[in-house]
């Protein structure tokens, strides 16, 4: 089963994403900030990471850099708000594969996941 790590500081957002992915047959783990995500990524392997950008402790961009150091093959999709294009570009430079824009549209998320995992 494809394992996805959902990283967001708002548990409301994690819950939504978790539900969507679970419904679509993915196995989901959650992390509440970049540091937590890094910690989980070190302990476990994931096929995909869905990463929020603005988070306490360690932001999404920093986390992408660290995860990529850890695993150059890591596949990461950024979750972005309108207006965060510069940060997303930075994350792409650091090795993130794609992004989705909040508020989430389920079909766009699934489209992006399929693309990144293919």
């Amino acid at each position, binding site marked *: 089963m494809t394992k996805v790590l959902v990283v967001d*500081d708002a548990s409301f957002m994690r819950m939504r994403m978790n539900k969507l992915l679970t419904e679509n047959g993915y196995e989901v783990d959650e992390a509440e900030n970049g540091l937590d995500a890094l910690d989980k990524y070190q302990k476990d392997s994931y096929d995909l990471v869905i990463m929020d950008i603005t988070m306490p402790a360690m932001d999404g961009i920093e986390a992408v850099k660290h995860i990529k150091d850890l695993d150059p093959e890591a596949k990461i999709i950024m979750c972005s*708000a309108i207006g965060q294009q510069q940060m997303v570009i930075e994350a792409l430079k650091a090795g993130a594969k794609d992004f989705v824009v909040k508020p989430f549209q389920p079909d766009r998320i699934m489209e992006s996941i399929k693309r990144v995992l293919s």
Partner: protein
Amino acid sequence: MGLDFEATPEEIKIFLEEAKEQIQTLEDGIMSLEKEHGEIDPESLQSIFRAAHTLKGSSAALGHVNMAKLTHEMETILDHLRKKSIDVTPELVELLLDGIDGLRIFNDEIYQGKESGIDVNDLVLDLQNFVATALDITPDTPKKAPFHPDQTDLKGPLFDASLETAALEIATSLNQNVFEIEVRLNTENTLPPVRAYQVMMFLEDIGQLIASEPTLQDLEKDRIEDTLKVLLVTKTDKKAVEDGIASIPDCKKVTLTAIKKANKTEKKEKIISAKPSTDLARKGVKAEKRTRSSETVISPTIRVDVDVLDDLMNLVGELVIDRTRINSDIQKLHERKEAEEALEKLGQTGNHIGRVTEKLQELIMKARLLPLETLFRKFPRMVRDLALKAEKEVQLVMVGEDTEIDRSVIEQISDPLIHLLRNAIDHGIEKPEERARLNKNSTGTVCLSAEPEENYIVIRIKDDGKGIDPAKIAASAVKKGLITPQKVQSLSVKEATELVFMPGFSTAEEVTQVSGRGVGMDIVKKNLENLNGSIQVFTEVGKGTEFRIELPLTLAIMRTLLFQSTDNLYAIPLSAVAETNRISKAEIKYVDNRKAINLRGKVLPLIHIEELFNLPVPQISGDFYFVIVVKNAKGQVGIIVEKLLGEEEVVVKTLSKLLGETRGISGAAILGQGEVAFILDVPSLLAYVTDSRLAGACCN
């Protein structure tokens, strides 16, 4: 109008909880920005910004458009503050605080499932205008002329001829192809510069970018409308390039033109690929989604430490084991096998259950405790606003916010505390010029403190204002007809001051905007007494006033005195009991046909518990009565009961509303053998006694 969200009640509950915290972070942050004139450390500013940002994301996901709109504008401003491109001004603080108020209203809308009808657009506009003015741009200024390429008709080359020539030269030397690529991007709900960036990254992967419009640097500065043009040299064939680009989302239309050396402008091939719109599919998904009925009630939630929950689970586990043991022992008893041993084991299990339930009780109480901070944290903003309105300078000092108290107590002391704070600012603290004249610091101080004391929490509200003048209070009470001039003469200074707690009393010459809200100190006192708490006032003219509130740690479990009368069981809160006494019937005297005794030189009115509930008074045999002496601020009353049963800790159950008027009874308790005892509500009982039966007699 009802509000429907695409979310389950569970999700909404979590949203509300988080939103509440984020709004609080925002408010605290904005107030410290005001206090420090914008000079707060970047980390704090970052966390305020993050709160707005996260709330924007969540509210948009939930589908509360107004909340998302408002948080977006607030986020923009905080972003500017973070980048120091605008300054903190009083106007900005006001606007942001208005925003906070708006967010609270919206959060409430979601909680209620109903729209409040508040229009957010004016505030959004004000916020936008503020930024525009601060940045010295008018919002009407048209944006930089948008980049408009010829859209579908390729009237000419996309790039300068010299660039094309250069590309062709490179391509020829490498035996590769040259493509002019035009990508039209979807701009709704996406980040066009990032999509363009992704296209460029893909193209860079498969070939060489000779030129692009906009350039990579432009993209990093957000300079793009909806079209990206690239001149690419690659060994990849046209179809693969086209498919590659088309697999990137939001690339609406991809036009690829192969450029050949000989007839470069005439023989352009157009390959147009368009992606099917996903809108229809989305609508289908949306229609299937569960929508929350606006009638759904969301119960209040509390966060419990996971460790506490684990401990609770362990204890419950032990109880389950005990149940199994009891069943097996009972079985043995039934079969008359090893009866002695079974009985002994039952005794042991009973003891064990006793220990476990004690721990359970302790833990549950702990789980119900909340730091007073959850209540106190709304006060700085309130005091600020009140002081501003009253044209006073007030500093609020809070001490002991981490003191923990039962959540139901917290909910119920909010209004009394607000009232006392309002009073302190409105009636206590003087205006700055007056304070200066009195050689006081022009800024008044209101201190709100909390600390545990034995089984009580003591909350003090202290101001350094003008104090309460007992003579003025007494005169006012007489004027209002609350007390006779004769009686006033006999009052001590403390008693005169406490007249402020009398119903219908208010010293304000005129009802002000701040305090005049129709709630009197008598209500404050009554509310606190309903919680088994008490309030006292200490004051010194010219120096200030202190209100001292005592509250029980919890309302859920109460230490009571149990007694029985006419086959009914009653529990009376120990906090209200002054003493118990056995009184000889011979000592009883009659005052206005009412029983009374002389207890240590004071007249103590007596009343049968049955009289209080209009029940027939039983004949009590013997020469003695058992009397429970209960106290409140007005005095003492002796309640005659049939039999005292002793002290007991009881779990308070509230009575169903279906029972209607239950004056004098605050709840019920279930005792060890399953009997039900009524818990007496002493303040209302005494009010009943003093109002209708023993007026005057108990107050001497």
